Protein backbone atom coordinates (compact mmCIF):
# COMPACT_ATOMS: atom_id res chain seq x y z
CA UNK A 1 0.00 0.00 0.00
CA UNK A 2 2.86 2.34 0.80
CA UNK A 3 4.42 1.65 -2.58
CA UNK A 4 1.09 2.23 -4.31
CA UNK A 5 0.68 5.52 -2.47
CA UNK A 6 4.21 6.46 -3.51
CA UNK A 7 3.35 5.59 -7.09
CA UNK A 8 0.17 7.64 -6.98
CA UNK A 9 1.82 10.72 -5.50
CA UNK A 10 4.84 10.50 -7.79
CA UNK A 11 2.75 10.01 -10.90
CA UNK A 12 0.48 12.87 -9.90
CA UNK A 13 3.53 15.03 -9.41
CA UNK A 14 4.93 13.97 -12.78
CA UNK A 15 1.66 14.50 -14.64
CA UNK A 16 1.44 18.03 -13.27
CA UNK A 17 5.08 18.59 -14.16
CA UNK A 18 5.10 17.05 -17.61
CA UNK A 19 3.85 19.24 -20.42
CA UNK A 20 3.27 16.44 -22.90
CA UNK A 21 0.81 14.48 -20.78
CA UNK A 22 -1.01 17.41 -19.27
CA UNK A 23 -4.78 17.60 -19.57
CA UNK A 24 -7.90 15.69 -18.76
CA UNK A 25 -7.18 13.21 -21.51
CA UNK A 26 -4.24 11.81 -19.56
CA UNK A 27 -6.47 10.88 -16.65
CA UNK A 28 -9.05 9.37 -18.97
CA UNK A 29 -6.38 7.32 -20.70
CA UNK A 30 -5.03 6.17 -17.36
CA UNK A 31 -8.36 4.71 -16.33
CA UNK A 32 -8.95 1.06 -17.25
CA UNK A 33 -11.19 0.36 -20.19
CA UNK A 34 -14.09 -1.92 -19.55
CA UNK A 35 -13.65 -3.42 -22.98
CA UNK A 36 -10.06 -4.49 -22.41
CA UNK A 37 -10.86 -7.94 -21.12
CA UNK A 38 -13.36 -8.46 -23.92
CA UNK A 39 -10.84 -7.49 -26.58
CA UNK A 40 -8.38 -10.01 -25.20
CA UNK A 41 -10.91 -12.76 -25.61
CA UNK A 42 -12.03 -11.40 -28.92
CA UNK A 43 -8.60 -11.94 -30.38
CA UNK A 44 -8.56 -15.51 -29.20
CA UNK A 45 -11.97 -16.08 -30.67
CA UNK A 46 -11.04 -14.50 -33.99
CA UNK A 47 -7.86 -16.51 -34.17
CA UNK A 48 -9.74 -19.69 -33.50
CA UNK A 49 -12.22 -18.68 -36.18
CA UNK A 50 -9.44 -18.26 -38.72
CA UNK A 51 -7.74 -21.50 -37.88
CA UNK A 52 -10.82 -23.66 -37.69
CA UNK A 53 -13.10 -24.22 -40.65
CA UNK A 54 -16.64 -23.27 -40.02
CA UNK A 55 -19.18 -26.00 -40.23
CA UNK A 56 -22.55 -24.75 -39.46
CA UNK A 57 -24.74 -27.52 -38.32
CA UNK A 58 -28.17 -26.30 -39.06
CA UNK A 59 -30.07 -29.37 -38.15
CA UNK A 60 -28.46 -30.02 -34.79
CA UNK A 61 -28.35 -26.49 -33.54
CA UNK A 62 -32.02 -25.77 -33.88
CA UNK A 63 -32.40 -24.80 -30.30
CA UNK A 64 -29.40 -22.48 -30.34
CA UNK A 65 -29.51 -18.90 -31.51
CA UNK A 66 -26.36 -19.00 -33.60
CA UNK A 67 -24.10 -21.16 -35.73
CA UNK A 68 -21.63 -23.55 -34.17
CA UNK A 69 -17.98 -23.82 -35.08
CA UNK A 70 -16.53 -27.29 -34.85
CA UNK A 71 -13.04 -28.59 -35.24
CA UNK A 72 -12.24 -30.70 -38.23
CA UNK A 73 -13.20 -34.27 -37.41
CA UNK A 74 -12.08 -34.10 -33.81
CA UNK A 75 -15.05 -33.86 -31.57
CA UNK A 76 -18.60 -32.79 -31.38
CA UNK A 77 -19.81 -29.24 -31.18
CA UNK A 78 -20.39 -29.18 -27.44
CA UNK A 79 -16.68 -29.40 -26.60
CA UNK A 80 -15.37 -26.98 -29.21
CA UNK A 81 -15.06 -23.25 -29.10
CA UNK A 82 -18.21 -21.79 -30.57
CA UNK A 83 -18.48 -18.04 -30.75
CA UNK A 84 -21.95 -16.74 -31.21
CA UNK A 85 -22.45 -15.05 -34.57
CA UNK A 86 -25.07 -12.94 -36.25
CA UNK A 87 -25.67 -10.81 -33.22
CA UNK A 88 -26.25 -7.25 -34.23
CA UNK A 89 -24.78 -5.56 -31.24
CA UNK A 90 -21.03 -6.16 -31.16
CA UNK A 91 -20.83 -5.63 -27.46
CA UNK A 92 -23.49 -8.17 -26.68
CA UNK A 93 -21.81 -10.63 -28.99
CA UNK A 94 -18.48 -10.09 -27.28
CA UNK A 95 -19.97 -10.64 -23.85
CA UNK A 96 -21.83 -13.69 -25.08
CA UNK A 97 -18.61 -15.09 -26.53
CA UNK A 98 -16.84 -14.32 -23.31
CA UNK A 99 -19.41 -16.12 -21.23
CA UNK A 100 -19.38 -19.05 -23.59
CA UNK A 101 -15.63 -19.21 -23.57
CA UNK A 102 -15.52 -19.07 -19.81
CA UNK A 103 -18.06 -21.86 -19.55
CA UNK A 104 -16.03 -23.92 -21.98
CA UNK A 105 -12.89 -23.21 -20.00
CA UNK A 106 -14.52 -24.17 -16.74
CA UNK A 107 -16.08 -27.37 -17.96
CA UNK A 108 -13.69 -28.97 -20.40
CA UNK A 109 -10.02 -29.56 -21.04
CA UNK A 110 -8.89 -29.72 -24.64
CA UNK A 111 -5.19 -29.47 -25.40
CA UNK A 112 -5.42 -28.13 -28.94
CA UNK A 113 -7.91 -25.47 -27.98
CA UNK A 114 -5.87 -24.58 -24.93
CA UNK A 115 -2.76 -24.18 -27.09
CA UNK A 116 -4.66 -22.02 -29.52
CA UNK A 117 -6.31 -19.77 -26.98
CA UNK A 118 -3.38 -19.46 -24.60
CA UNK A 119 -0.94 -18.90 -27.48
CA UNK A 120 -3.17 -16.20 -28.93
CA UNK A 121 -3.67 -14.60 -25.55
CA UNK A 122 0.04 -14.58 -24.74
CA UNK A 123 0.95 -13.09 -28.11
CA UNK A 124 -1.73 -10.45 -27.72
CA UNK A 125 -0.80 -9.70 -24.11
CA UNK A 126 2.90 -9.41 -24.90
CA UNK A 127 2.27 -7.25 -27.95
CA UNK A 128 -0.07 -4.87 -26.15
CA UNK A 129 1.78 -5.10 -22.89
CA UNK A 130 5.07 -3.95 -24.36
CA UNK A 131 3.88 -0.46 -25.06
CA UNK A 132 2.14 -0.23 -21.70
CA UNK A 133 5.20 -1.55 -19.96
CA UNK A 134 7.51 0.77 -21.86
CA UNK A 135 5.37 3.73 -20.85
CA UNK A 136 5.22 2.49 -17.28
CA UNK A 137 9.00 1.99 -17.11
CA UNK A 138 9.61 5.45 -18.55
CA UNK A 139 7.15 6.94 -16.05
CA UNK A 140 8.91 5.17 -13.18
CA UNK A 141 12.27 6.50 -14.33
CA UNK A 142 10.81 9.97 -14.70
CA UNK A 143 9.19 9.83 -11.28
CA UNK A 144 11.90 8.15 -9.27
CA UNK A 145 15.10 9.00 -11.11
CA UNK A 146 14.72 12.29 -12.91
CA UNK A 147 12.25 14.23 -10.75
CA UNK A 148 14.26 13.74 -7.53
CA UNK A 149 17.02 15.74 -9.19
CA UNK A 150 14.54 18.55 -9.83
CA UNK A 151 12.75 18.40 -6.49
CA UNK A 152 15.00 16.87 -3.88
CA UNK A 153 18.63 17.21 -4.90
CA UNK A 154 19.09 20.80 -3.73
CA UNK A 155 17.56 19.92 -0.36
CA UNK A 156 19.69 16.80 -0.09
CA UNK A 157 22.89 18.66 -0.99
CA UNK A 158 22.12 21.48 1.43
CA UNK A 159 21.32 19.07 4.25
CA UNK A 160 24.45 17.00 3.65
CA UNK A 161 26.67 20.07 3.42
CA UNK A 162 25.10 21.38 6.60
CA UNK A 163 25.77 18.07 8.29
CA UNK A 164 29.39 18.13 7.15
CA UNK A 165 29.80 21.75 8.18
CA UNK A 166 28.52 20.87 11.64
CA UNK A 167 31.40 18.44 11.89
CA UNK A 168 29.32 15.27 12.13
CA UNK A 169 31.38 13.57 9.47
CA UNK A 170 34.70 14.29 11.17
CA UNK A 171 38.02 13.89 9.42
CA UNK A 172 39.49 16.23 6.88
CA UNK A 173 36.18 17.07 5.19
CA UNK A 174 35.05 19.06 8.19
CA UNK A 175 38.24 21.12 7.95
CA UNK A 176 36.74 22.87 4.93
CA UNK A 177 34.00 24.19 7.13
CA UNK A 178 36.03 24.49 10.36
CA UNK A 179 34.44 27.74 11.42
CA UNK A 180 35.55 27.29 15.04
CA UNK A 181 39.24 27.37 14.14
CA UNK A 182 38.61 30.29 11.77
CA UNK A 183 36.83 32.11 14.58
CA UNK A 184 39.69 31.30 17.00
CA UNK A 185 42.21 32.68 14.50
CA UNK A 186 40.20 35.86 14.03
CA UNK A 187 39.77 36.23 17.78
CA UNK A 188 43.52 35.94 18.26
CA UNK A 189 44.02 38.55 15.57
CA UNK A 190 41.54 40.87 17.27
CA UNK A 191 43.25 40.39 20.64
CA UNK A 192 46.66 41.11 19.12
CA UNK A 193 45.30 44.25 17.47
CA UNK A 194 43.69 45.37 20.72
CA UNK A 195 46.95 44.79 22.63
CA UNK A 196 48.84 46.73 19.98
CA UNK A 197 46.28 49.47 20.17
CA UNK A 198 46.52 49.75 23.97
CA UNK A 199 50.36 49.71 23.77
CA UNK A 200 50.21 52.50 21.22
CA UNK A 201 47.88 54.46 23.48
CA UNK A 202 50.31 54.09 26.40
CA UNK A 203 53.18 55.17 24.18
CA UNK A 204 51.16 58.13 23.00
CA UNK A 205 50.43 59.14 26.60
CA UNK A 206 54.15 58.96 27.39
CA UNK A 207 54.90 61.16 24.40
CA UNK A 208 52.29 63.62 25.58
CA UNK A 209 53.88 63.65 29.06
CA UNK A 210 57.35 64.18 27.58
CA UNK A 211 56.02 66.93 25.35
CA UNK A 212 54.39 68.66 28.31
CA UNK A 213 57.57 68.37 30.38
CA UNK A 214 59.64 69.84 27.55
CA UNK A 215 57.15 72.64 27.14
CA UNK A 216 57.28 73.42 30.86
CA UNK A 217 61.10 73.39 30.79
CA UNK A 218 61.08 75.75 27.84
CA UNK A 219 58.69 78.11 29.62
CA UNK A 220 60.87 78.00 32.75
CA UNK A 221 64.05 78.70 30.75
CA UNK A 222 62.32 81.66 29.06
CA UNK A 223 61.31 83.26 32.36
CA UNK A 224 64.81 82.78 33.76
CA UNK A 225 66.37 84.57 30.73
CA UNK A 226 64.14 87.65 31.16
Amino acid at each position, binding site marked *: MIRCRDDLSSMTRFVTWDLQERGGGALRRALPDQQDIVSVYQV*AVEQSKKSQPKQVEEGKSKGKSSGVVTKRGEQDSSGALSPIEDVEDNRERDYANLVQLMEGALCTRDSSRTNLV*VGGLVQHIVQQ*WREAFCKS*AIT*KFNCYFML*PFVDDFHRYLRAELHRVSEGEEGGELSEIFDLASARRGLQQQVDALRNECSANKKLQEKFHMVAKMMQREQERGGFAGQ
Partner: protein
Amino acid sequence: MSVSERTWDHLLQSEVGNTQHKLYGGSQYHRVLREFNLATRCLRLPTITEDEIANAAGIGETHDGVNFLRASCVIALEKAQISFDPLLDALRMRISHIMGRLCPVSEYMIRQKADRKAASYQYMRDGRPDGQSTFSTDITHNPQFRSLVRSLFDEFVQKCSDNVSPRLVCLCCVCWVFLYGPASHPCHDATPLNFRP
Protein backbone atom coordinates in the same frame (compact mmCIF):
# COMPACT_ATOMS: atom_id res chain seq x y z
CA MET B 1 15.50 -7.95 -31.79
CA SER B 2 13.02 -8.53 -34.57
CA VAL B 3 14.90 -6.26 -36.99
CA SER B 4 18.28 -6.55 -38.65
CA GLU B 5 21.25 -4.50 -37.55
CA ARG B 6 21.03 -2.33 -40.64
CA THR B 7 17.35 -1.64 -40.08
CA TRP B 8 18.08 -0.90 -36.45
CA ASP B 9 20.68 1.71 -37.45
CA HIS B 10 18.21 3.24 -39.88
CA LEU B 11 15.50 3.30 -37.21
CA LEU B 12 17.91 4.91 -34.77
CA GLN B 13 18.49 7.71 -37.24
CA SER B 14 14.84 8.21 -38.06
CA GLU B 15 13.07 7.49 -34.76
CA VAL B 16 15.60 8.47 -32.11
CA GLY B 17 17.66 11.18 -33.77
CA ASN B 18 20.77 13.02 -32.55
CA THR B 19 22.61 9.70 -32.61
CA GLN B 20 25.98 11.25 -33.46
CA HIS B 21 25.55 14.40 -31.42
CA LYS B 22 27.32 15.11 -28.17
CA LEU B 23 24.42 15.62 -25.82
CA TYR B 24 24.33 15.92 -22.07
CA GLY B 25 21.75 16.38 -19.34
CA GLY B 26 18.10 16.47 -20.31
CA SER B 27 18.69 16.03 -24.03
CA GLN B 28 20.77 12.94 -23.46
CA TYR B 29 18.17 11.63 -21.02
CA HIS B 30 15.36 12.06 -23.54
CA ARG B 31 17.44 10.44 -26.26
CA VAL B 32 18.01 7.32 -24.18
CA LEU B 33 14.29 7.12 -23.39
CA ARG B 34 13.48 7.37 -27.10
CA GLU B 35 15.96 4.59 -27.81
CA PHE B 36 14.44 2.44 -25.06
CA ASN B 37 11.01 2.98 -26.57
CA LEU B 38 12.28 1.93 -29.98
CA ALA B 39 14.07 -1.11 -28.57
CA THR B 40 10.87 -2.15 -26.81
CA ARG B 41 8.90 -1.96 -30.02
CA CYS B 42 11.55 -3.91 -31.90
CA LEU B 43 11.64 -6.81 -29.47
CA ARG B 44 10.94 -10.17 -31.02
CA LEU B 45 7.63 -11.77 -30.03
CA PRO B 46 8.26 -14.79 -27.82
CA THR B 47 7.90 -18.29 -29.16
CA ILE B 48 5.67 -20.44 -27.00
CA THR B 49 6.02 -24.19 -26.93
CA GLU B 50 3.22 -26.62 -26.27
CA ASP B 51 5.08 -27.86 -23.22
CA GLU B 52 5.02 -24.41 -21.71
CA ILE B 53 1.31 -24.07 -22.32
CA ALA B 54 0.57 -27.52 -20.95
CA ASN B 55 2.58 -26.85 -17.81
CA ALA B 56 1.12 -23.39 -17.33
CA ALA B 57 -2.43 -24.75 -17.67
CA GLY B 58 -2.00 -26.97 -14.63
CA ILE B 59 -4.81 -27.36 -12.15
CA GLY B 60 -6.54 -24.54 -10.31
CA GLU B 61 -7.93 -24.43 -6.80
CA THR B 62 -11.55 -23.92 -7.74
CA HIS B 63 -12.09 -26.23 -10.71
CA ASP B 64 -10.45 -28.68 -13.04
CA GLY B 65 -10.87 -26.64 -16.21
CA VAL B 66 -8.12 -24.70 -17.86
CA ASN B 67 -7.83 -21.18 -16.58
CA PHE B 68 -6.78 -19.44 -19.79
CA LEU B 69 -6.09 -16.12 -18.13
CA ARG B 70 -3.88 -17.60 -15.47
CA ALA B 71 -1.97 -19.73 -17.96
CA SER B 72 -1.52 -16.78 -20.31
CA CYS B 73 -0.36 -14.55 -17.47
CA VAL B 74 2.16 -17.11 -16.25
CA ILE B 75 3.67 -17.51 -19.71
CA ALA B 76 3.51 -13.81 -20.60
CA LEU B 77 5.14 -12.93 -17.29
CA GLU B 78 7.97 -15.38 -17.80
CA LYS B 79 8.55 -14.22 -21.37
CA ALA B 80 8.41 -10.60 -20.28
CA GLN B 81 10.98 -11.14 -17.57
CA ILE B 82 13.33 -12.85 -19.99
CA SER B 83 13.00 -10.16 -22.65
CA PHE B 84 12.62 -7.02 -20.56
CA ASP B 85 15.05 -7.51 -17.70
CA PRO B 86 18.18 -6.92 -19.80
CA LEU B 87 16.56 -3.88 -21.39
CA LEU B 88 15.68 -2.42 -18.00
CA ASP B 89 19.16 -3.08 -16.62
CA ALA B 90 20.70 -1.37 -19.63
CA LEU B 91 18.33 1.58 -19.27
CA ARG B 92 19.10 1.94 -15.56
CA MET B 93 22.84 1.84 -16.17
CA ARG B 94 22.67 4.35 -19.00
CA ILE B 95 20.50 6.77 -17.05
CA SER B 96 22.81 6.44 -14.04
CA HIS B 97 25.72 7.26 -16.32
CA ILE B 98 23.90 10.27 -17.80
CA MET B 99 22.98 11.61 -14.38
CA GLY B 100 26.46 10.93 -13.04
CA ARG B 101 27.98 12.94 -15.89
CA LEU B 102 25.92 15.97 -14.90
CA CYS B 103 28.22 16.86 -12.02
CA PRO B 104 31.52 17.20 -13.96
CA VAL B 105 29.63 18.98 -16.75
CA SER B 106 28.14 21.47 -14.29
CA GLU B 107 31.52 21.90 -12.62
CA TYR B 108 33.15 22.63 -15.96
CA MET B 109 30.43 25.16 -16.77
CA ILE B 110 30.87 26.90 -13.41
CA ARG B 111 34.64 27.11 -13.93
CA GLN B 112 34.21 28.42 -17.45
CA LYS B 113 31.77 31.03 -16.19
CA ALA B 114 34.14 32.07 -13.40
CA ASP B 115 37.06 32.30 -15.83
CA ARG B 116 35.05 34.45 -18.23
CA LYS B 117 33.93 36.67 -15.39
CA ALA B 118 37.48 37.01 -14.12
CA ALA B 119 38.73 37.90 -17.59
CA SER B 120 36.00 40.51 -18.09
CA TYR B 121 36.26 42.20 -14.69
CA GLN B 122 39.93 42.20 -13.94
CA TYR B 123 39.74 45.64 -12.42
CA MET B 124 37.39 44.33 -9.76
CA ARG B 125 40.08 42.15 -8.25
CA ASP B 126 41.28 43.41 -4.96
CA GLY B 127 44.77 44.22 -6.16
CA ARG B 128 46.65 41.23 -4.94
CA PRO B 129 49.79 40.49 -6.91
CA ASP B 130 48.66 36.93 -7.65
CA GLY B 131 45.49 38.36 -9.18
CA GLN B 132 43.18 35.58 -7.97
CA SER B 133 41.69 37.00 -4.83
CA THR B 134 37.99 36.33 -5.49
CA PHE B 135 38.79 32.99 -7.08
CA SER B 136 40.67 31.76 -4.04
CA THR B 137 38.16 33.03 -1.49
CA ASP B 138 35.21 31.44 -3.32
CA ILE B 139 34.58 28.09 -1.63
CA THR B 140 33.14 26.57 -4.81
CA HIS B 141 36.66 26.55 -6.23
CA ASN B 142 38.09 24.76 -3.25
CA PRO B 143 39.25 21.31 -4.49
CA GLN B 144 38.14 19.64 -1.27
CA PHE B 145 34.72 21.25 -1.49
CA ARG B 146 34.36 20.22 -5.13
CA SER B 147 35.30 16.67 -4.31
CA LEU B 148 32.79 16.67 -1.44
CA VAL B 149 29.99 17.89 -3.71
CA ARG B 150 30.95 15.33 -6.35
CA SER B 151 30.81 12.48 -3.85
CA LEU B 152 27.43 13.71 -2.57
CA PHE B 153 26.15 13.90 -6.14
CA ASP B 154 27.33 10.35 -6.89
CA GLU B 155 25.66 9.16 -3.70
CA PHE B 156 22.41 10.80 -4.78
CA VAL B 157 22.59 9.18 -8.23
CA GLN B 158 23.16 5.78 -6.63
CA LYS B 159 20.30 6.43 -4.23
CA CYS B 160 17.94 7.23 -7.11
CA SER B 161 19.11 4.18 -9.03
CA ASP B 162 18.52 1.95 -6.00
CA ASN B 163 15.14 3.58 -5.48
CA VAL B 164 13.89 2.93 -9.01
CA SER B 165 15.06 -0.70 -9.19
CA PRO B 166 12.51 -2.32 -6.85
CA ARG B 167 9.74 -0.45 -8.61
CA LEU B 168 10.69 -2.11 -11.89
CA VAL B 169 10.98 -5.58 -10.42
CA CYS B 170 7.23 -5.97 -10.10
CA LEU B 171 6.77 -6.80 -13.75
CA CYS B 172 3.50 -8.58 -13.13
CA CYS B 173 1.87 -5.33 -12.06
CA VAL B 174 1.45 -4.10 -15.61
CA CYS B 175 0.17 -7.47 -16.68
CA TRP B 176 -2.38 -7.41 -13.90
CA VAL B 177 -3.47 -3.88 -14.58
CA PHE B 178 -3.74 -4.73 -18.25
CA LEU B 179 -5.95 -7.71 -17.60
CA TYR B 180 -7.94 -6.81 -14.54
CA GLY B 181 -7.60 -3.07 -14.06
CA PRO B 182 -5.80 -1.13 -11.32
CA ALA B 183 -8.43 -1.97 -8.68
CA SER B 184 -7.43 -5.62 -8.69
CA HIS B 185 -3.72 -4.98 -8.50
CA PRO B 186 -1.92 -7.61 -6.36
CA CYS B 187 -0.79 -4.89 -3.96
CA HIS B 188 -4.45 -4.29 -3.09
CA ASP B 189 -5.03 -7.94 -2.13
CA ALA B 190 -8.15 -8.06 -4.26
CA THR B 191 -7.06 -10.54 -6.88
CA PRO B 192 -9.72 -12.16 -8.99
CA LEU B 193 -7.68 -15.32 -9.38
CA ASN B 194 -5.24 -17.05 -7.13
CA PHE B 195 -2.37 -16.00 -9.29
CA ARG B 196 0.89 -16.06 -7.41
CA PRO B 197 3.72 -16.35 -9.90
